[in-house]
């Protein structure tokens, strides 16, 4: 039958490492640095974003350490300000925005579509270099003495009142922004143009759908950030006042432009993670995703509505009350597609046949934590509530719940899920379960107290705070320690598994995606011959029939 057209390897029990694959295809550092292979670029990205995650994490550690006591005794206030600024910039622009798309997306989208590569392999490599230049500039800003604008670069503070390395950091973000634009552009073209025969839009894995939606945001939103940041740099350098009220400019204009990108950016950050969750939930419950098209369309709806709500970051900043009304309403609307997804995932489990491997544990953590994070977002979207909560730790807790509890958990789910595909080896299961549980507990301990702190009124970006907030802060710091351990563990055991992990075989999870029908690690050209997609996504019956007709072994 048709299944023969898809190259496949025997199962894990008999698995051996293929002789030829993308990792050993060529040797030497240059073969990596000049590669055009989307899988190798994904690995390059994986290494670099991990590096930056730990840089950002180190700053998080320092923040939490400083907040252990009410006084600013560990470091002076200006140093603390640099800490959270670097933490925010590194985590957002150098870690979370590229996290899933540039690693897993890069690696998997062509394979999931049955293509040999992304549409523009060289541009893909260029993206990575841009990313690295942006990263290097950020580190340069750090080494030269740091930046203390906060990741939001609020004018006129950033333009006229600080004499730290704002322009360097702005350039870094500008450059990294173009890396993100090119990644998004590449994905969109690939998804439109490179699908294998039979791969209709509604046969694409939901992972691809969510990346498609996120890519739209990258392509259309990021340039607005770029121009906003250019204007900040120009205003600093020349000193004229598009954003300076004393010269007739409107500082809120900067905020409009900044959040026009940065709100959609939060969906750039969450959508790819949602794609991961769809794959993982389906695979470990052996069921097709409940309401496939609702989940697919809700991704696009999030992307579309995501452009209409940015002003909710400015509700008390002096925008018109009537306009705030409009944006608040739209904010409520954009929350609905997320709710749809959550319930669709939950019902995917119904009548499934569920197992609890590590990726599944992370996926459960994602659903729970994202629900909390998302619903507290609704607090902030409700105008009257936002007045009290804005700029307090409630916000900090909200966005860590969606970004760390959501996206980071999804990233870890994805990394564990596709680790066998990317490296050909399994991660150690019990250790990884331990780390999943540890980070879940640590996470809640860190950020749950911050909700309470926020309602008590503790402002964010405070190096010192009134003594009555200390108990909760100590809890939070304690949690961060546990969380740090939970995040360090994967680094160690995944590294270990590169050499000592069990050989994975082509399809250790018995998953349905095209990526699982080829050898692990894949060949440089992914497929020996162009696959033909003749079934729906998540068609487990097709998979069962297919394994009976097992054929070719390659490599």
């Amino acid at each position, binding site marked *: *039958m*048709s299944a023969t057209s898809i190259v496949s390897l025997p199962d894990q029990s008999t698995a051996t490492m293929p002789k030829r694959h993308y990792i050993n295809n060529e040797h030497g550092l240059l073969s990596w640095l000049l590669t055009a292979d989307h899988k190798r670029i994904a690995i390059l990205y994986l290494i670099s974003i991990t590096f930056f995650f730990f840089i950002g994490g180190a700053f998080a550690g320092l923040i939490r350490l400083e907040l252990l006591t009410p006084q600013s005794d560990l470091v002076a206030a200006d140093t603390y300000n640099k800490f959270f600024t670097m933490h925010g910039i590194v985590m957002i622009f150098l870690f979370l925005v590229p996290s899933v798309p540039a690693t897993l997306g890069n690696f998997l989208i062509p394979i999931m579509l049955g293509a040999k590569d992304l549409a523009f392999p060289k541009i893909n490599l260029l993206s990575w270099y841009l990313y690295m230049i942006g990263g290097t500039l950020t580190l340069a800003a750090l080494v030269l003495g740091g930046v203390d604008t906060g990741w939001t670069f609020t004018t006129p503070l950033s333009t006229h009142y600080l004499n730290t390395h704002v322009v360097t950091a702005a350039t870094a973000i500008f450059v990294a922004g173009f890396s993100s634009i090119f990644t998004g552009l590449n994905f969109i073209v690939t998804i*439109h*143009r*490179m*699908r*294998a*025969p*039979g*791969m*209709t*839009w509604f046969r694409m894995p939901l992972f691809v759908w969510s990346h498609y939606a996120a890519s739209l945001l990258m392509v*259309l939103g990021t340039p*607005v950030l770029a121009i906003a940041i250019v204007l900040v740099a120009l205003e600093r350098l020349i000193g004229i006042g598009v954003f300076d009220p004393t010269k007739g400019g*409107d500082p*809120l204009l900067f905020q*409009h432009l900044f959040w*026009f990108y940065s709100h959609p950016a939060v969906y750039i950050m969450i959508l790819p993670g949602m794609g991961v969750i769809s794959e993982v939930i389906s695979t470990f419950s052996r069921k097709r995703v409940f309401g496939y098209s609702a989940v697919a369309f809700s991704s696009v709806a999030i992307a579309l509505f995501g*452009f*209409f709500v*940015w*002003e909710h970051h400015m509700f008390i900043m*002096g*925008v*018109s*009350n*009537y*306009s705030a009304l*409009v*944006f608040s309403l739209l904010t409520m609307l954009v929350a609905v597609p997320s709710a749809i997804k959550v319930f669709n995932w939950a019902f995917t489990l119904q009548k499934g046949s569920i197992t609890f491997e590590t990726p599944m544990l992370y996926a459960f953590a994602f659903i729970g934590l994202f629900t909390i994070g998302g619903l507290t977002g609704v607090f902030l979207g409700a105008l009257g509530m936002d007045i009290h909560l804005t700029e307090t730790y409630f916000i900090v807790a909200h966005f860590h719940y969606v970004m760390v509890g959501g996206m980071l958990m999804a990233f870890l789910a994805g990394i564990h899920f596709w680790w066998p595909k990317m490296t050909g080896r399994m991660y150690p299961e019990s250790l990884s379960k331990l780390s999943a549980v540890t980070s879940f507990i640590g996470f809640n301990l860190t950020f749950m107290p911050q909700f309470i702190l926020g309602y008590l009124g503790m402002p964010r970006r405070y190096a010192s705070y009134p003594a009555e907030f200390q108990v909760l802060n100590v809890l939070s710091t304690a949690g961060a320690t546990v969380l740090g351990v939970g995040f360090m563990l994967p680094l160690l055991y995944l590294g270990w598994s590169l050499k000592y992990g069990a050989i994975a075989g082509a399809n250790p999870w018995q998953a349905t995606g095209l990526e699982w029908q080829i050898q692990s690690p894949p060949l440089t050209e992914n497929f020996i011959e162009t696959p*033909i*997609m*003749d079934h729906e996504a998540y068609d487990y019956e097709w998979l069962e029939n297919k394994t009976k007709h097992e054929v070719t072994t390659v490599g």
Partner: protein
Amino acid sequence: MSHAHTDAHDPSNVTNPEHAEHHIVTPLQYVYVFVTLLVGTGITVGAAYVDMGVLNPIVALAIACFKASIVILFFMHAAYQSRLIKITIASGFFVFLVLIAMTMTDYLSRTWGLW
């Protein structure tokens, strides 16, 4: 065996990409467009010296939009492109309009004047 797949055939797929024929626009057509653009420029400048009140910027922008449209349609071949490309172009302008219109909800409804 291949016949089993024909129903699974996506028109927007690689084997039959959603594309328009590669249309070659003739130089004559380009000349028409070129002349129109020059005339448009002339009118723009001329109109700027006629006092039409609020209509001045509107006329100027209308002419600019018209000129941009024919550049997009003919110089850039959008008229002969697939629907995908047309939608792409439209979506770009759409998001630009979102930026303008939604930001304007703030500026237009501020209690008075600029601030």
